């Protein structure tokens, strides 16, 4: 997945690389305008605080948004960019694969 160049600075990474149970702040969804607006309507908007509840293998993940639970496909999770809510990247991001 190619992240927009302007987002390679700082500790911003795709949701698919996030560790479970660490609070994350949503920075941007790069999945097309209609879908991004739909995500925002469901509460997944820039600034929202979320956690990965479960990510198993290459399947979809469950994320928590307050008391809400949402299923997010892998492809989707590659395109939602997050930052650690407490600024600590080491605890929030998995060591990148490959």
């Amino acid at each position, binding site marked *: 997945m190619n992240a927009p160049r302007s987002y390679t600075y700082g500790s911003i990474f795709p949701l698919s690389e996030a560790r479970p149970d660490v609070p994350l702040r949503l920075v941007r969804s790069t999945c097309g305008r209609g879908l991004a607006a739909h995500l925002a*309507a469901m509460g997944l908007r820039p600034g929202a605080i979320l956690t990965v509840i479960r990510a198993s293998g290459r399947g979809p993940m469950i994320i928590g948004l307050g*008391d*809400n639970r949402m299923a997010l496909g892998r492809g989707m999770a590659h395109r939602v960019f997050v930052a650690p809510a407490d600024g600590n990247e080491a605890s929030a991001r998995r060591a990148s694969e490959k």
Partner: protein
Amino acid sequence: MPSRIRIALAGNPNSGKTTIFNAITGARQHVANYPGVTVEKKEGLARRDGVEITVIDLPGTYSLTAYSLEEIVARNFLVDEKPDAVINIIDASNLERNLYLTVQLMELGLPLVVALNMMDVAAERGLKIDVAHLSALMGVPIVPTVGTKSEGVTELIDASIAVALGRLSSKPAAVKYGTEVEEEVAKVQAALAPDAHRLGKYSPRWLAVKMLEEDEEAVRQVGAVLPGAGEALSQAKKSGEHIRAIAGDDPEIVLADRRYGFISGACQESVVSTAESQHLLSDKIDVVVTHRALGIPILLALMYVVFYFAFRAANAPGNWIGAALGWVSGLVRAAVPASPYHPANLQSLIVDGVIGGAGSVIAFLPNVMVLFFAIAVLENSGYMARAAFVMDHLMHKMGLHGKSFIPMVIGFGCSVPAVMSTRIIENRLGRLTTMMVIPLVSCGARLPVYALLIPAFFAPRWRAGVLWFIYVFGIVLAVAIARLLRGTLLRGESHPLVMELPPYRMPTLKGLLIHTWERSWLYVKKAGTVILAASVLLWFAAHWPAPPEKGLAAAGTKEQANALVLSGSLVGRVGRAMEPAIRPIGFDWRVGTAFLGATAAKEIFISQMGIVFSVGESADTAAELRGKLAAEYSPASGFAMLLFTLIATPCVATVVVTRRESGSWKWALLQWGGLTLVGYLAALLFYQLAALFGAAA
């Protein structure tokens, strides 16, 4: 003063909207489609203090953009039909997300009443909501409700009547987007102003906001209505660029952000949370149910339980209905005279054509009702979304995503609503693929065929297993064919999955019963119309042209006379002509004849076999027919019949609805022809292998 009003219900999926709808209208409901599209339109009636209320249940949506067909339908209804009041049902335990739709409804400027639903759940989670204050901030009346216990529903009806009749004010607060954005909104609005009188039902501000969001539907409608729209559209584009430049994000995201700003402001002032977000019971259940290794086995096991009940528990009432129909047939035989040698008579038309045709469908109503009930339990408890989650990875390999699983599960009830429900899949290729393979999911109409055939050919201990195998095999085949399609005809990128997992809830009996009643009624209506007509038509095709009287007189027994009539009839001739083609799959011309009938509807196979074998001598026609089948065909033939029923010749209703949903006959005919070919090949492969091992005798 008007005594008739119309009220629309709007709300997020899983906000308890259907429960409130049921509580308001009871059983006085009517299901239809919105004109031109196949989004379900539910209407109900209620009466209170001499006011006749029509309640319209809009499709559940998260917003009023043009993202999905449901959103467009809900929005167009609100704008075009201008209901007297709109009830917005929101989940109090999930306030901020639900208020997002509320804000959009407020922007539309309709007379709004908010039902703050699931107050019990909110209280459990330690949320204290100052309803009066929230109501003052939003400018709309708010009524707390607990839909599952019908609490607050009377107050809700009273408030919406009062708003509809203008006795209670509902003046939604204006949502401001901040200085920079407001400037741009004003510019677009100004560009629209010269043609304001042509906009009619649209408020210029609302349209301006939608145009800034580059909402396709709004842009299209503006273009269609206004001759000078070019200027407004180019202003909207310019303004959008400006917002993008200063806010660093797409305008619709910026506007969404401002709406959420308004919402969280209102919530901070009126909601107190006394408990930290807790580890919910739902999460604990999900740990097991969505487990990587356990998820799919649990899903399969649950399905097995569903079908066990549909097959076993519902059998006794089915037998009672069968006995009652046998009794009626006996009455008809006593009352209507029949020529002893000529089977083509009025008695046979009534007993075999009418009672045999529609009756056999009614006899399986209990099985179908149990199936619909069980599906409603899975749906209303929240499990269905988990099923989609669990299946997502697998569905992804088919080039689909988890959501495609939901139409397939609905397909267990009936392929027709299943094909309609593919609308939840946004991607056209994914949707078409799902539509093509839905008939491989065994629908309720095929269950009676299985229920007839399986006990005829298999020992009791094998029956549940064979039924389970047929269902699962259909799914496996659907996967294979979908993959094939996605790699060839329908190649392309698939849409990713985004779906809410609602907390598990105990379904209410009332909701389950209403749902079961609704679906079962559709099934009975089908039996009463299409299938009855097809059955009578087939009766004529099976008795015409009649053989010469002389030949009939020479026939010794009634059975011989029947055989003579049928073999000389239209159906018999076509069946015979087909025989060389179907003998390799273990069928004779009579089975072929029955399958010809099943092209109209799957369950006609039963009534047609009944006619072919002149069943109707004893009270229990199903048992009589099974006896004849077991005597005439080998279990290998029986199994080939099961395979053919599963795969080949999707029913006419399915093909017609596929044509409507896909927009062309091409896909409908591909579905019919392709599946029939695959069904033939599967039966051929099985039967020939069985013959090889000497099991086909």
